[in-house]
């Protein structure tokens, strides 16, 4: 037995005082807290920056031609207004936001809407671009997806399925159909073997469109906005 081991053995025989036990645990907890707060404060801005970058990238992707965007949220009167996070607003209390895209000339390119819907495994999170003047879904990006690899994850890996959302009419409502049976502009061809995931995406689009449509229309009328190409 080495010297060190002997010392440990001898030390163990004496019962340490309660104070020492409490002090050891308290000190360990205190140090751990200090380290964690330090690392948290250091990484927080980087993490938030990453998230904002990812969202920005997705917005530009679902609204083709967009170069800048405004963030809008519903105000107290149920109207859309530009959203500026006040420094007092706490995390988790932020209102739901939508993103209003514009091109280089300041013309309206569409609205990016974020929504979540339970899929086969977990919530599917989607950001989609909505052309409020032409009443069409014009872009689609899956932000969160834990669907079955090889089946459900085709909602973003299968190009044919993603192509459904480049010019999809939203009126009267979006309808899922079997593969190869698409006849109308408001129909989405579901993925064979992943009907639940496909239907979840369609449900997500319909739900969020109903939720925001009136407010978006009111906002467009109020500000007399229209896309130049599709002037009515």
């Amino acid at each position, binding site marked *: 037995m080495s010297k060190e081991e002997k010392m440990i053995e001898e030390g163990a025989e004496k019962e340490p005082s309660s104070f020492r036990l409490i002090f050891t*645990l308290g000190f360990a907890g205190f140090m751990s807290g200090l*380290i*964690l707060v330090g*690392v948290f404060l250091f*990484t927080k801005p*980087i*993490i938030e920056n990453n998230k904002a970058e990812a969202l920005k990238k997705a917005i530009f992707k679902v609204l083709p031609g967009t170069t800048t965007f405004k963030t809008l949220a519903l105000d107290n009167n149920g109207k859309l207004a530009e959203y500026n996070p006040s420094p007092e607003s706490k995390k988790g209390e932020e209102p739901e936001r939508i993103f209003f895209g514009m091109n280089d000339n300041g013309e309206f390119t569409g609205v990016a809407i974020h929504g979540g819907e339970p899929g086969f495994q977990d919530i599917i999170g989607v950001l989609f671009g909505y052309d409020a003047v032409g009443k069409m879904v014009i872009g689609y990006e899956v932000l969160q997806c834990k669907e079955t690899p*090889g089946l459900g994850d085709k909602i973003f890996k299968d190009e044919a399925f993603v192509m459904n959302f480049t010019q999809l009419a939203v009126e009267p409502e979006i309808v899922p159909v079997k593969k190869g049976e698409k006849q109308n502009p408001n129909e989405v061809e579901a993925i064979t073997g992943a009907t639940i995931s496909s239907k979840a995406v369609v449900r997500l689009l319909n739900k969020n469109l109903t939720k925001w449509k009136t407010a978006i229309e009111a906002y467009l009328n109020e500000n007399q906005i229209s896309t130049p190409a599709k002037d009515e």
Partner: protein
Amino acid sequence: MSTEKSRVAAEFIKGLWKENPVFVALLGMCPALAVTNSAINGLAMGLATTFVLVCSSILVSLLRKVIPKQVRITTYIVIIATFVTVIDFVLEAFLPDIHKELGAFIALIVVNCLILGRQEAFASKNNIGMSIIDAAGMSAGFTFALVSIGIIREVLGNGSIFAVDLFGKSFEPWIIMILPPGGFFSLGFLLLFFNWMTERNKQKRSKTA
């Protein structure tokens, strides 16, 4: 001097082969099955675990005479949990894609028996140098196991290795290999292989003796 050197080598190598945490000791099964659907995920998980195991071993070995025996497990858990949370934040900040892929399993490194096991069995009884060697060996063994399972599952289930396509478009991937059952199949076959190797070595040795 040479015995010291050979002890260092032995402590390191035992983690890789003779006492491999996954293939022999069957520790850390949860990440070994859950995040090994690709080689890169296995590697990332292995490296995250390495960081936690090595750092915790250093601290536990350093404090082995200060921490009273009665509260040692609790203190080890606090130490391990601190390092796990640190690596969780760091990965989220600097490798967000990997962090998204590994998800909840990073936080679950805390309950990986391999880590607490090494603190109790080794770091709390040995000096810092030896504890680092032991932790490094065990981590290397763990990472090796996770990457092996990951490679098998990714090659068969996705037709690629470290995200590099192997077979072209004509290959029909065995989807089941990247689904949960594939984890059990791969681990089962690797365990079979490991046991067969060990058995064969034993027989060889007994023949020569």
